[in-house]
């Protein structure tokens, strides 16, 4: 199971290398603030904190903090 996932990841990596590059002057749309992958970091932090204290799958991301959630 795990091996398949890693293979998929490496495959995806290789595939992406083959993409036709988008020239810098064609990236106007991508540069819009609402196209940022995390377009609202403060709200993401709030959501992550709430989900993290209510669900078991939190973590797996570099960072830290967030408290115990021991209630």
């Amino acid at each position, binding site marked *: 199971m795990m091996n398949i996932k890693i293979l998929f990841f490496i495959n995806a990596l290789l595939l992406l*290398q083959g993409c036709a590059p988008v020239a810098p*002057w064609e990236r106007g749309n*991508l540069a819009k603030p609402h196209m940022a992958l995390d377009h609202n970091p403060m709200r993401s932090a709030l959501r992550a904190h709430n989900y993290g204290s209510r669900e078991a799958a939190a973590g797996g991301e570099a960072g830290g903090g967030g*408290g*115990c959630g021991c209630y």
Partner: protein
Amino acid sequence: MAVIDRCETGLCLRKAASRSSGLQALTAAALALPGMLSSGDAAAADSEFAFQQSRYEEGKRNLFDAKVENPIQVDSIHASGKLSLTDRIKFAFNFLQDTWSGATPMSTAPLAGAIRPNIPVEREGVVSGASPFFQRTIQFNENFEPLAVDPVSRQTLGVDKRAVHVMSTASPETRNQGDFKLTYEWDELALDLGGGISIERDYESRFVNFGGRWDFNQKSTTLNFGMSYTNSDTYAIIDHDAQVYIENTNEGSQFTQAFRNQIKIEKGDYILQGNREDWGVNLGLTQIVGKSTVLDLSFGYARGTGFMENPYKVMTLVFVDPDTLEGETRGVLEQRPDERNQFSFGARLAQYIEPLDAAWHFNYRFNHDDWGIDAHTFESDWVQPLGSGWKVTPHVRYYSQSAADFYSPYLLIKQAFSKAVFVPGVGITRQSADDSVLPANFSSDHRLSGFGTLSGGVSISKEFTKGFTLEAGFEYYTHEGRLKLGGGGEAGFADFNYYVANAALKVDLDNLGRALDFFGDGHGHHLHHHGAGNPAGLMFAHMMDEPGSFMVGYQFMYGRQSGDMLNGSSVPLDSTIVENGCSTDIQCRFTPKFMNMKMHMLMFMYAPTDWLNLMVMPQFVDMDMNLRELSGRPPPAQGVHEHTGVGGHETGGVGDTSLSALIKLYDSGMHHLHAGIGVTAPTGDVDLEFRRIVQEDGGLIHFMMQLGSGTWDFTPSLTYTGTLDRWSWGAQASGVKRLQDKNESGYALGDLFQTSVWGGYNLTSWLSTTVRGIYTVQGSIRGDFNKFNGRGGPMDFPKNHGGRFWDLGLGVSAYVPSGDLAGNRLSFEWIQPLKDDVNGFQLERDGALSASWSYAF
């Protein structure tokens, strides 16, 4: 943007984009792609200040008609800032605070109960029966299924396999977190180093992280990596009410030795201690896959070791005697594995929808760990700009997880807990079960059960002027066993829901500066402020006289009391406090040892004309206090929660909100006079209570630990300021008049009058100092608590509030007159008490610190 200057292709772009500063900014950001994209910073500037407030409130749990205490609610604030120290060095910091109180599940028990049922009993119209608790006797059938029994007739009603939560209520508690990140950026590479600390009464966590990104393939591809290390200590006081029912903390029990060497007994409190370490690494790849599409893939691994338990969760053990089929329940602290390895895979897609100028975000995440939990998360945001700076973002999310291998709502053990047996040669003796009947790990924390969640919400934001944005959002979340992917989730007893409402303010300092340049009317950097060098702790002293100008500000105040107890101006003996500090009927048993008060205040100020300024100031406060026992105190009174003083107590949340207007009365350039007229709205709670303990109400928390006045208050002020060359001076008289006789808890704080006189000197064009003399007089509290209060000491009696106070304020203030950060002002003031003459008996003040930041545009 330095990037433009370094990029050859940028030159032609800049020419094409020179028609509008907005397009210029956008193109500049495009060239920085995708590194900034992947780190989530493209939406934000290099220099930014943001503040967010939120409220989390859970719906009531299903306790099958038993009395439901108020569910948990959390008030949070989050302040964050980013600064470009140089073109290449960036600094970011966050401060977060959560304050929560209310009931949460502590254990789970079978609903059926033979003698003391877990549901209330109605006899002749009167409902009786306690809240669900985990020590019960239950009848089983031969298949070991629990049987419901009519509590009145004792007749068996049939199989009832339902379970129910056992709830535990907490007094208010606060968590503070501070963290930072320092980033160094090269043209195609960036490295960052960060760290922080999270502190709550029962948990302290310290963390460091290191990460970076590498752009290549003409910045079409970015590789991200990160790693983190966290070290956390648990210091949990076991619930007083439950302690004797938990085998690990019951001194008379021989059932288990688990955790006994980690439990410290201090002043009657059982404190469970533990340490855990967490490591995390992740690797990510961001790829521009088209003119309108960005894809991000990531892989993460996290490893935790040590004390991974939730110290407040208790597993209910049901011992069923196979001979009699009678079940008897016991509670033990949950036991989780000492190790956890988690893997995650995530994919994020951002798709630009050209005809609507919208962005569609879709995220998927898969998590797998060696506790047996597999989880899937699907999340989607649609960000829709609506013109005029408005933006609306609907959001939907689905999450599903399988249960941990060791999760069970309760454990059924097919033997008697204690049984009389005949041993040849010894006779009849009692044999008790020991913890060899238990599995290695077990938990009834429903966060480890199988369930699904569905949540959705919307947020709306409005950019008022380039770089100044307000936002409000709402989210509803439901957790249900039956929402689990593929079915098989936990039964309905564990279902719950919550909502979160948030409001945020963002100031993008780079863009504000740009906007001001763009207007080119010369006003931007030369706003005229009266009293710009005022002491930081002074309110309503500063006025803007350019019509249409805005100011945003943030003020932090910290005050501490930890000196001697005072009676008037003298220090009384403990015996005097015992006799006279409370009332004629009640002797004092406790007195404050120290108290800390922190306040975060936001300021929004607008000048519609040159003679009028309008201000709104929301506040967020938090307090903590410790008590000490008075020597010669009387014995404990019946039915009163006595603070042991081990952990102290805390409150916090939204405080009162000030609304006011400043009106210019006279201005000659050198001399300036203005009046302030305002009210304070009672948005802070004044009905905070201690949790119920030993079946007794904790009652209302002390007057000064409540979050507001609870009354509408009138706040007039009169301010004079003068300036000549490098010198400035001023005087202010201000007051607070309560407009109501009492608040919802039955009392009104005393009216207050304050005068300040100060002088200041500009050391340089940007740095000034002030010296201030302050006199404050405040009346004692009128009325009294109209609900139960423990009446433990002077802090619980109205007469021991207010007084006459003399202080000296020493301040320093820095103003940025030009450059990228022009218009920013940062000031500090230390208030040193000179003399206290308190009403009744009060704790002496140590001093107070004010720090304020403001920005006018």
